[in-house]
C-alpha cells in the first residue's frame, strides 16, 4: 500500500518491539514495557496484538485472525483486512495453514504445531491489577514472587460459591516463576498453554506491555489441592458438527426460548463438518 511501510509500523518501532520480544521470550511470563504506538483503531480492538503481529510478520507468512474463535466476526475481519492492505500478506481461516495467528480470547481447538506463532490481544496484562491498583506495588509483588493474594482471591470464590468461579483470564504460573494473565481466554483453553509447541506472544496496546510463553514451557493454572483446576464442560454437543470436546457458545435462535450450542472455533467446526459430509 502506498504511503505506508510494510505492515504499517515504521522500522524503528518494529526493532524496539522486536528487542522487547526477545527479552519477553527470555523471561517467560514477565511483562516487558514497550513504547506502544497509536494504531488506526481504538484501544480494546487489539492494538497490542496488531503491533506484535506487525513486528513479526513477513511477506511470506500466512496470517489467520480469530475473535472468540471465529474468523468471521467484526474484530477478526477488520484486523485481517488491515494486514491484507498494509502488508499484502496471504490470509487463511485454516488453523493448520497459518504461520501467524492473531487471536482475541481463544486458542484454536486444532493443536498448534512447532513454528507457528500465536499472538494474543490482551486488555489488562497485569493479573494482580484488580487486587492491587498500584503498578509500583504489583511490580514489586512480581519481583518478590509474592503471589499469596492471588490464591486468596481464588479462595474467596470457594468461600462464596463453593468452587473457583473464575472462568476466563484464569491466572497461570509460567515455568514456576511468574504469575501471568493468559488474556481473557476461557479457562477451558488454559491446559493448551502448557507445553504447547507453538510460540505464544501477548500484546497489550493500552497498557504498553508484552509478554511471551516460549514453546514447550510449563504453564500451571493456579489451584488448591482440595479444589483442583477444572475446565468447563457441557451437557450438549455442538449442534452443527457434533463435537463433544470443544468450547461451545450458546446461541439464542428465537424469542421463544429456542437455543443451540455450537463450537466457538468456526474453522474447527467447519473442518469437522467437511470430514463428516
Amino acid at each position: 500500500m502506498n504511503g505506508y511501510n510494510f505492515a504499517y509500523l515504521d522500522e524503528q518501532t518494529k526493532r524496539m518491539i522486536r528487542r522487547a520480544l526477545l527479552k519477553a521470550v527470555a523471561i517467560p511470563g514477565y511483562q516487558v514495557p514497550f513504547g506502544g504506538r497509536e494504531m488506526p483503531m481504538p484501544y480494546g480492538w487489539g492494538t497490542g496484538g496488531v503491533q506484535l503481529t506487525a513486528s513479526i510478520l513477513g511477506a511470506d507468512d500466512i496470517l489467520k485472525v480469530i475473535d472468540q474463535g471465529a474468523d468471521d466476526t467484526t474484530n477478526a475481519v477488520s484486523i485481517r483486512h488491515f494486514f491484507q492492505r498494509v502488508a499484502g500478506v496471504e490470509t487463511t481461516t485454516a488453523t493448520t495453514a497459518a504461520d501467524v495467528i492473531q487471536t482475541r480470547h481463544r486458542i484454536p481447538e486444532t493443536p498448534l504445531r512447532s513454528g507457528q506463532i500465536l499472538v494474543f490481544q490482551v486488555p489488562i496484562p497485569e493479573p494482580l491489577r484488580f487486587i492491587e491498583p498500584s503498578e509500583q506495588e504489583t511490580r514489586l509483588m512480581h519481583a518478590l514472587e509474592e503471589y499469596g493474594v492471588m490464591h486468596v482471591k481464588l479462595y474467596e470464590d470457594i468461600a462464596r460459591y463453593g468452587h473457583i468461579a473464575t472462568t476466563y483470564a484464569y491466572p497461570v504460573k509460567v515455568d514456576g516463576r511468574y504469575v501471568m494473565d493468559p488474556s481473557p481466554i476461557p479457562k477451558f483453553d488454559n491446559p493448551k498453554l502448557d507445553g504447547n509447541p507453538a510460540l505464544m506472544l501477548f500484546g497489550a496496546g493500552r497498557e504498553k506491555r508484552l509478554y511471551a510463553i516460549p514453546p514447550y514451557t510449563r504453564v500451571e493454572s493456579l489451584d488448591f489441592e482440595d479444589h483442583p483446576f477444572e475446565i468447563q464442560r457441557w451437557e450438549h454437543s455442538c449442534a452443527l458438527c457434533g463435537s463433544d470436546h470443544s468450547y461451545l457458545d450458546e446461541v439464542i435462535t428465537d424469542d421463544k426460548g429456542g437455543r443451540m450450542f455450537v463450537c466457538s472455533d468456526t474453522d474447527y467446526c467447519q473442518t469437522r463438518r467437511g470430514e463428516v459430509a
Partner: protein
Amino acid sequence: MNLSWPALDDTVHDSQRLFRQVLGAMSEPGTVHELVVPTPPAQPQKPLLGAALWGALLSLCDLDTTIWIGAELDSPALREALTFHTGARITDDPASADFALLTHASFDPRTPFAVGSDTYPDRGTTLLVAVERLENDSNGNTKGERDGQSGWRLSGPGIAESRVLDIGDGAGCRALMTRLAGNRASFPQGLDAIFGCGARLAAIPRSTRIASAEARVDSREVN
C-alpha cells in the same frame, strides 16, 4: 571503508527474516539457525565476527541501542561500520550496554554487564558471542558424546525434553557457560546470550537450565 561492511539488501524484509530466526533461536534455546546475510570483512589480527552476528546487529540495533565491544574485536573499522549502518552508540561501560559483542576466548565473568533488576529484569545486556563451533544434537548425536567433544545439556522453556549444544571446549567457553548456568540462581536477573559461528546462530536465554552433557548422562546411569 564502510563499503566493505555490507548492509542488508532489503532493510525491511531482510531484517524481518533475520529477526524471526533470532526469535526462533531465543524461543527454542540450542537450536541452530543458518542466517543468509552478507559476510562482514575479516579484520587483520582480529577474530572473525561472522555473518550471523553481523546480521543480528543490523536487524536489532538502531539509534536507541548501545553496544559494548570486547577489546579483541574492537577496531575503528567495526565502530565506524556499526555507527554508519545502525546509528547505535558504542559504549565503554558494559553495565549500560544493550548488546555486548565479544568472543568466547576473551569472555571474562567479572565484566559487569547489566543483568537487570528484580523489578525490571528486561534491562539486561544481551551478549553476542562469536564462537568457533556451534553444533547441537539434532542430527542423531544424542548424548553429546561426539569424539569427546564437550557439550552442554540444555533444558527448560523452549525445549521439549533436553537438547545438547556444543560451543567448543576452550576455557572461555567453559567460563561463559558456567556464567550462563549461574543465571538460574539470580533469575529473573541474568544475561541472555546469542552465539554466532559464521552464518550459524543459536541462543541461550536466562531461563535455560544448563548442565554439562556428561554429568547428565552419568546421573541417568545412576538412576
